């Protein structure tokens, strides 16, 4: 996906602090973001020319907005805690890994392990996500407009994964208490993951997630819910064939 250029007028008006990774180092960018004090008025940031750099805007812990104009490599927005980070391109592996709070929007596609171990906040992927999306998630909410790859939500502990498209093989393998909502086809379910009834509270929850993700063209009733059968929570030799 081509990078969205920053509007010229905005740049001239100085609304955002601009970091050009073609001119400045990743270290300078992340240090500047970490130096932000609570209540800082530098609340809008633009990152130009990321060109697939790894670890762009990691460990940000202030409620600022960061627009990354282009595609990023591994672990963009890793451990985000409160920032609103938008990637106007695609993201490499581990985008938003271990996010605590805030939100991340990927305008393009995301590679493997999107939102891995995330503990809070919202990750929206407007394209597709590759394998292991939401692996080991611990409270994060993830909304994917396209499809997700195999082994997604593996050992997912808590939080919600919403997929408007299809899911690959072994969805929710060894899942704990996370909730999965898939609108399209599921290639196969992993160990201990089963389809579950969509009760009114789930419709309400899902509607809230779609609203937060800015998605209004689909209805919660079009989704199926999946979650843990909880049969593998305590080891039982009679379940050994399930692994």
């Amino acid at each position, binding site marked *: 996906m081509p990078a969205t250029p920053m509007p010229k007028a905005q740049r001239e008006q100085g609304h955002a602090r601009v970091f050009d990774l073609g001119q400045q180092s990743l270290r300078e960018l992340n240090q500047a973001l970490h130096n932000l004090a609570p209540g800082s008025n530098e609340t809008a940031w633009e990152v130009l020319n990321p060109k697939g750099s790894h670890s762009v805007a990691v*460990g940000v812990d202030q409620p600022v907005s960061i627009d990354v104009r282009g595609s990023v490599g591994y672990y963009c927005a890793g451990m985000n805690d409160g920032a609103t980070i938008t990637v106007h391109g695609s993201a490499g592996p*581990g985008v938003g890994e*271990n996010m605590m709070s805030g939100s991340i929007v990927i305008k393009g596609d995301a590679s493997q*392990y999107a939102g891995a171990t995330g*503990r809070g906040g919202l990750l929206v992927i407007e394209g597709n996500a590759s394998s292991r999306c939401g692996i080991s998630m611990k409270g994060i909410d993830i909304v994917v407009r396209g499809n997700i790859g195999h082994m997604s939500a593996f050992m997912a502990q808590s939080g919600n994964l919403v997929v408007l498209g299809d899911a690959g093989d072994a969805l929710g393998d060894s899942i704990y208490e996370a909730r999965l909502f898939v609108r399209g086809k599921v290639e196969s379910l992993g160990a201990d993951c089963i389809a579950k009834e969509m009760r009114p509270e789930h419709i309400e929850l899902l509607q809230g997630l779609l609203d937060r993700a800015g998605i209004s063209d689909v209805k919660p009733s079009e989704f199926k819910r999946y979650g843990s059968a909880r049969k593998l929570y305590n*080891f039982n030799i009679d379940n050994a064939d399930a692994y």
Partner: protein
Amino acid sequence: MAYHNPPTTPRKSATFDDYTLSEIRRAAATGIYDIRGAGAKRKVPHFDDLLFLGASISRYPLEGYRERCDTNVVLGSRHAKKPIELKIPITIAGMSFGSLSGPAKEALGRGATLSGTSTTTGDGGMTEEERGHSKTLVYQYLPSRYGMNPRDLRRADAIEVVVGQGAKPGGGGMLLGQKISDRVAEMRTLPKGIDQRSASRHPDWTGPDDLEIKILELREITDWEKPIYVKVGGARPYYDTALAVKAGADVVVVDGMQGGTAATQEVFIENVGQPTLACIRPAVQALQDLGMHRKVQLIVSGGIRNGADVAKALALGVDAVSIGTAALVALGDNDPRWEAEYNALGSTAGAYDDWHEGRDPAGITTQDPELMKRVDPIAAGRRLANYLKVMTLEAQTIARACGKNSLHNLEPEDLVALSIEAAAMAGVPLAGTNWIPGKNGF
């Protein structure tokens, strides 16, 4: 007089010995593998198979109580803005809150701090007690990422990326439901009472090239301040050390098969991984081949018990050692004072390893509020500090006898081996010979 054939003495099989027979009966009765804590119990070549030569006409000793023998070590000077300096080259290994009680974790922190060394979190996140009582705290970054958050990452003094551990290279953590109290469950974001079998691989990287990028991320999040360790089990120490260095580690930690675990399968503990002694020289060789020996520090753990073990590890090229099981014993683990209670659990003091069951009479490997009261964190911390002091004095005694004014000046030339196996593993001559098996074509 009738002649009676003299009977032979009943003879048990060496192959099917009593323990093996009992395990077959146990397996047949239960249908499930045996789970236990601690490290390998089988006899393997170890530091006991090495001896120091001491001083002689060609080497003169230092005065035992008068001449200085340095013990301090700096860890993480390769890339970190804030390397760690420890007063002694003996650190406390990672053990989780969850597997250990809160008072036990606090005691480890207190003992380490009194001794000027570091302690390490585990597969369960960082607790306030632990952070508060540990001057130098290493924060483990594990596959499960239980309790992982950027705030704790930044208030750690170093970060240890755990790839594996000696008791179970290739295995994930295990914490059975009996020990999942409300607090442990909350820290791990899991329901109370379930059996936690942690992942064996990291969720967001695989292989050395990814590890390099992961380490970059951790450095960027912490502004390049913290030393980053990479811990591996004793699997392929040469290549694992080389790859950890290539990935950017400041410190490599190699844990041999005698290193303990809170819980895993007995078959895993006893049959996967290499002895500590077999891991050291390959790891040192990797550092030397890369020109990184003493630039990237090497910590070795698994079966370190006394100052002689410390001195031998350092002589083989290690920068520091780490203790887990021995530290727990110093706190009071497996103490004979609880013998009646060990017996009631079908064990005996010195053999008790059902740490996963959470009924530890010593109050260390438990989450039972009554049992954990048996650990007084202040007194237990003092015992650990005493023990660390003794180990350090012992190592200094040996170093001075070898003419060294620093523990780190000990060298392989100070050692001989008592067995061919130990000579081959340690790369030192068999005692009484100049033969190093595997060297010079022999």
